[in-house]
């Protein structure tokens, strides 16, 4: 038997113990274009319904074996996903009959006697409702399919590409099939980890159109080594251009540097971000300091990252407002206090996501979840990139002071950039250099070490050369935060000063060599003492400063400071 959607004709079922009545109704229905089946008791009516799946059922009330009410209940329970319009035909003109008919699942009642015209009008009106119902159903199905596709795309394209899923605890419970929350993690070239928790306005498919370009930007910029703040500026621009005024993204960003024992945080419209120690005590709360992204064209003046010192055993926790605002049947909200208590327990047991979710569910007792729930917890220790993968066998610090020049004419290509004043404060040349190198020489893992070398040398030239910052600042407990703030301050006031970066690439038999020269306009520093100090590696291994330059000297074939420390030359061999 064809299903109702596949038939090209309409089918009606008449259930009445009077053969005469069946015939009369049958004739009228045929005039309306129906094919008609009849049954003479309720039980037989239910059987016929199952067999033929009619578009319309006319039901008598008083019948042998099974009465009309009971038959109607059975039919309605069999057709939960389709509206099988069912009309009671009766001579019982009482309120009671009317009420019971509707309660049994009937969609209408027609009381005898009625004229053929009234009967046909009733059939038409019920058919109209049934057509509308079918339309809604098919729209609903189409929407469901779209959401499923989008969900697949989200989990396939966006979330499966997240970094370190084994170490970062991510909890996600969407209010609908498709969440308006987005959680991204990615690794920086220097081994730091960048994390984003975003909450688009509303939830469901509509709210997530910005998610895919956003994820792309976050990953690509992180990979290229842009700083967290540069990434945020770019994302805000992108979302402002992409989204209509009433759609935006409340977002929290964290970048954790294990080597600096520092977390950089930006909270734009999320509830407080937490830093917990391993005992579950709150060490810091970082409040929202900026409207959500995509609301204003560029970030508010004076916007900056919050910088906090962290221990390796600490963790940083981001959450969306869905948890705080989860409600129970009494209309009460879960709230911050309950959350903090559950989080404390969860951090202590190292089951944060699980513990918090369990507690929220206990509180809500099955009340409808109105908003997406999500939470990310990132440990602060051990985000270090394994370096020096292809060191020559006798790996030792480069021979300082004897720099062998290759003839300049031998260079396959050269590239340089000079940044000064305000531009020096705002533009990071390393991602630009890296993308140039990869344009010319092709991408690949071999450039990772070069990225580290360039970054360390450039930062040294800028921080200690041009800005004159003293790295001994970093030795104190809150040193990195102090250092970072001082750096920000001096960068903002920077009006002169120059850094020049030059690259020369030489082709050697079966490999290549990159010569790097970085000159800065600073006064230089006591590089001899510095180099001597770092050559006694043991001593500085535990120190917070100077670590970068040791790494560089290990990675480079040659490394030398000149002109009192204001010019550095390095040479990197590609295998």
């Amino acid at each position, binding site marked *: 038997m064809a299903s109702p959607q596949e038939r090209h004709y309409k089918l009606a079922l008449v259930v009445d113990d009077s053969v005469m009545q069946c015939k009369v109704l049958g004739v009228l229905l045929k005039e309306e274009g129906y094919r008609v089946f009849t049954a003479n008791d309720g039980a037989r009516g239910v059987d016929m319904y199952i067999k033929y799946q009619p578009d319309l059922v006319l039901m008598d009330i008083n019948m042998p074996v099974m009465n009309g009410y009971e038959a109607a209940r059975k039919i309605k329970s069999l057709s939960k996903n389709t509206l099988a319009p069912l009309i009671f035909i009766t001579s019982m003109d009482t309120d009671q009959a009317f009420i019971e008919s509707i309660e049994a699942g009937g969609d209408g009642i027609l009381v005898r006697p009625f004229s053929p015209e009234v009967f046909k009008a009733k059939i038409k009106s019920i058919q109209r409702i049934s057509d509308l119902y079918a339309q809604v159903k098919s729209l609903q199905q189409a929407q469901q399919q779209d959401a499923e596709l989008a969900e697949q795309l989200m989990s396939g394209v966006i979330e499966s590409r997240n970094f370190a899923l084994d170490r970062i605890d991510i909890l996600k419970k969407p209010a609908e099939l498709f969440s308006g929350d987005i959680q991204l993690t990615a690794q920086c070239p220097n081994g730091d980890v960048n994390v984003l928790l975003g909450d688009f306005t*509303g939830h469901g498919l509509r709210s997530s159109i910005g998610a895919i370009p956003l994820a792309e930007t976050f990953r690509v910029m992180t990979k290229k080594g842009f700083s967290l703040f540069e990434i945020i500026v770019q994302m805000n621009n992108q979302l402002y251009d992409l989204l209509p005024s*009433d759609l935006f993204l409340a977002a929290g960003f964290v970048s954790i540097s294990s080597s600096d024992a520092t977390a950089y945080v930006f909270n*734009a419209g999320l509830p407080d971000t937490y830093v917990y120690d391993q005992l579950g005590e709150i060490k810091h709360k970082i409040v929202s300091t900026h409207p959500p992204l995509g609301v204003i064209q560029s970030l*508010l003046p004076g916007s900056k990252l919050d910088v906090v010192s962290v221990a390796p055993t600490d963790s940083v926790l981001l959450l969306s*407002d869905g948890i705080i605002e989860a409600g129970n049947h009494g209309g009460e909200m879960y709230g911050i206090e309950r959350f903090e208590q559950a989080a404390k327990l969860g951090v202590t047991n190292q089951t944060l996501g699980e513990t918090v979710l369990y507690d929220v569910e206990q509180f809500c007792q099955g009340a409808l979840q109105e908003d997406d729930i999500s939470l990310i917890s990132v440990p602060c220790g051990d985000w270090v990139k394994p370096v020096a993968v292809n060191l020559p066998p006798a790996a030792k610090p480069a021979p300082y002071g004897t720099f062998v020049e290759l003839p300049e004419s031998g260079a396959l290509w050269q590239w340089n950039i000079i940044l000064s004043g305000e531009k020096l404060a705002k533009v990071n040349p390393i991602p630009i250099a890296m993308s140039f190198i990869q344009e010319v020489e092709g991408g690949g893992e071999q450039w990772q070490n070069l990225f580290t070398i360039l970054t360390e040398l450039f930062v040294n030239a800028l921080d200690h050369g041009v800005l004159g910052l003293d790295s001994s600042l970093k030795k104190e407990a809150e040193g990195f935060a102090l250092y970072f703030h001082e750096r920000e301050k001096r960068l903002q006031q920077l009006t002169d000063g120059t850094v020049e970066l030059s690259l020369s690439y030489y082709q050697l038999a079966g490999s290549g060599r990159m010569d790097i020269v970085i000159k800065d306009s600073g006064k230089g520093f006591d590089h001899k003492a510095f180099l001597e100090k770092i050559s006694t590696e043991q001593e500085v291994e535990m120190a917070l400063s100077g670590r970068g330059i040791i790494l560089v000297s290990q990675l480079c074939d040659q490394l030398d400071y000149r002109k009192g420390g204001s010019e550095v030359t390095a040479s990197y061999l590609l295998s």
Partner: protein
Amino acid sequence: MSVKKHVSSNLKEITIGIDDRFDFSLHQLFRDSYIGEVAQGAVFTLDLSRTSYMDSSALGMILLLKDHAEKLSGSVIIKQPNESVAKILEIAQFHRLLKIEN
């Protein structure tokens, strides 16, 4: 109706009050309340003294009102949000985008 509106006789001061919940269900009503007000320099006062709850889509709706007001070289003032609504406005740092009066 849970969106109430009052317009001054010179058409330049529009007060919009929201009762109870301010969420996506009010989208159309809220828009209808201001879209016809086009006096140059109009000041839209959003009275939230009777608003018990506000969600993020309401924040979006306020931004649309702000766009509308700015097109008229006017402004938006939010008045008397209760504690929980004020918290939501604070997290979203809306005081940096428009005026909020207690």
